[in-house]
């Protein structure tokens, strides 16, 4: 079936190609004196990492110009938060970058906590749980980065392995938060509930499996000639380029800058953990892969340190000790799965008038946040993620803006792709690890 649809207008001849009929296009490009071809890739394309549209001007197989178009996944998350309470805001921001929902929640909650002035009142156990979950998710996010990046250059096995490991992480997160994605688990003031009793055992088991599997990845990829051939020296972006384009995260560290907010501007108690900031100096796609790979090992170390510090669940608080902020409802495992805690219902209905009032006011109105603005950045798997949160003193956010690292990093793709081969555009995009849910929000 030939589906070549040729049309000539003021912009020149255009073709609609659905695969298998490139000869006509190639012949037409030969006829054209300049030999230039403008190719539209996406927005629905398996190699664009989501719904990203790439427009390429080609001279033969060399990319002369590259432009990206985003916005296909815009869902108005920021606007929606302005019509819900501060607590409900968590359920919106978590849906921005769907490969690192807990980071979105953490950035948002840390900003709200700063505005509330309760940054130092968040219980230690809540911080340890936050770090534990974030590091679990960092591995999951890096796994998808490597998996989809491998798939896009033809290494399907890497994709199946990567998603297999991520499934183990999602199992852990499901056990702890109740959901595989979009957890809404981190809340202003702490986390929504304590870990279940079998969480520590499950996570320890995962760490053991993951350490072994990471060795397999190293054997499969690190010195693989084809893999290195596709990635080494491709999509380079040096340090001045990273600085000018606001690039953070693994891309910046691959350019030799040891910049990690967990070390430089610690939050959630990261100063108490021992781990290394991994850097490389190749500034290319291969070094970005290596950095993600090594960071997963560091994350496993941090997870183990978290588990050692946790202790048995249920003894220490996981929410700030302020009945005017802390979400009042408690959950318990009932005969039909999860439900309201009968102890809590007895407390508010039979024992304490104040508890009933706090429950009612917090659930219907929510709490008020003093007027002002805050920006608390955290080191997400993709770079600096910050929530710019403005309050006008009310029970709803006045404005929430997520500074998503994918959004800023994606701007660097033309700088990495122009002048290179068209096949390397795929590598360049994959090495950025953009998630369009976060880019478009």
């Amino acid at each position: 079936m030939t589906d070549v649809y040729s049309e000539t207008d003021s912009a020149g001849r255009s073709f609609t190609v659905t695969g298998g009929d490139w000869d006509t296009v190639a012949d037409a490009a030969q006829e054209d004196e300049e030999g230039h071809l403008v190719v539209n890739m996406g927005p629905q394309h398996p190699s664009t990492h989501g719904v990203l549209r790439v427009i390429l001007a080609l001279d033969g197989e060399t990319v002369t110009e590259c432009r990206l178009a985003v916005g296909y996944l815009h869902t108005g998350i920021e606007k929606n938060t302005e019509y819900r309470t501060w607590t409900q805001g968590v359920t919106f921001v978590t849906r921005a970058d769907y490969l690192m929902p807990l980071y979105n929640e953490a950035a948002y909650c840390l900003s709200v906590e700063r505005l509330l002035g309760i940054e130092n009142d968040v219980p230690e156990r809540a911080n340890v749980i936050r770090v534990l979950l974030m590091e679990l998710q960092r591995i999951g996010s890096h796994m998808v980065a490597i998996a989809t990046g491998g798939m896009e250059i033809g290494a399907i096995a890497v994709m199946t392995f990567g998603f297999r490991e991520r499934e183990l992480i999602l199992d852990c997160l499901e056990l702890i938060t109740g959901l595989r994605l979009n957890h809404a688990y981190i809340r202003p003031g702490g986390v929504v509930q304590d870990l279940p009793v079998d969480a520590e055992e499950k996570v320890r088991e995962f760490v053991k499996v993951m350490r072994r599997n990471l060795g397999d990845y190293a054997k499969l990829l690190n010195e693989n000639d084809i893999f290195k051939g596709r990635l080494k020296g491709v999509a380079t972006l040096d340090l001045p380029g990273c600085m000018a384009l606001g690039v953070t995260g693994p891309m910046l560290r691959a350019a030799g800058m040891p910049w990690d907010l967990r070390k430089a501007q610690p939050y959630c108690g990261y100063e108490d953990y021992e781990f290394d900031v991994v850097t490389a100096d190749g500034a290319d796609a291969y070094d970005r892969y290596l950095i993600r790979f090594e960071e997963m090992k560091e994350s496993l170390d941090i997870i183990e340190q978290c588990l050692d510090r946790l202790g048995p669940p249920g003894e220490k608080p996981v929410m700030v000790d302020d009945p005017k902020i802390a979400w009042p409802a408690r959950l318990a495992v009932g005969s039909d799965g999860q439900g309201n805690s009968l102890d809590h219902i007895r407390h508010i209905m039979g024992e304490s008038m104040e508890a009933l009032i706090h429950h009612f006011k917090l659930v219907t109105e929510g709490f008020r946040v003093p007027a002002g603005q805050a920006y608390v950045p955290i080191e997400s798997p993709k770079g600096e993620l910050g929530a710019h949160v403005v309050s006008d003193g009310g029970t709803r956010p006045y404005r929430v803006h997520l500074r998503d690292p994918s959004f800023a990093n994606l701007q660097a793709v033309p700088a990495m792709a122009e002048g290179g081969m068209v096949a390397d555009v795929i590598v360049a995009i994959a090495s950025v690890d953009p998630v369009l849910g976060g880019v478009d929000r």
Partner: protein
Amino acid sequence: MSTGGGGENVPERRVHDLPLPTYGRGMFGANDTGDTSGYGRLRRPVPFPGPAQRPYGEGLDEIADAFEGGYDDYHTAIEQVVVHRGEITFHVRRESLLDAVRVLRDDEILRFEMCLGVSGVHYPQDVGRELHAVYHFLSITNNNRLRLEVSCPDSDPHIPSIVEVYPTNNWHERETFDFFGIVFDGHPALTRIQMPDDWVGHPQRKDYPLGGIPVEYKGATIPPPDERRAYH
């Protein structure tokens, strides 16, 4: 915050009208039903954090000193300095924005190598300065941060683009234009980035409705989120 002691060292600062306050309405959010308490007619001002006095706090005075020392037009460019929750915000006149960010990037003490983009905030009650653009900067060398805030009236929504100094702001400024209608003069290609090109309006402004339809459930009707009872 005390101003005593070092009073003679504090430069005289022209304090412009604060952007706000906003006003809290009522107490129970019951403006539309039989509110017999009278609290529904309450109107109390909610002030935003005001201009700060020296000392600004740990690490922040050094930034302010370096900014003041490195920028010749500091006193005309900077309208006020706000310190809140340990974060410092310089309110900059829009005419001076480009010069100010050049100082931030190029000054050998300040060294704000990285800009983390701009986000808009719409304050309809702040007449004459309705649209605010908020920039976050990071100095990796000094490991510190600062924030610039620029305002422009809704009737003349123009702010100079800083893309020539911080290229990363290209997409960020397009997004702020898309959502708030702030025109960044000098931007290389200021087009919409998230909304379709032919979209009418700027969706994250406060006068742009969220939209939605009432939902009926078991005979009761739940209004869309922007028409529900709100508490302030």
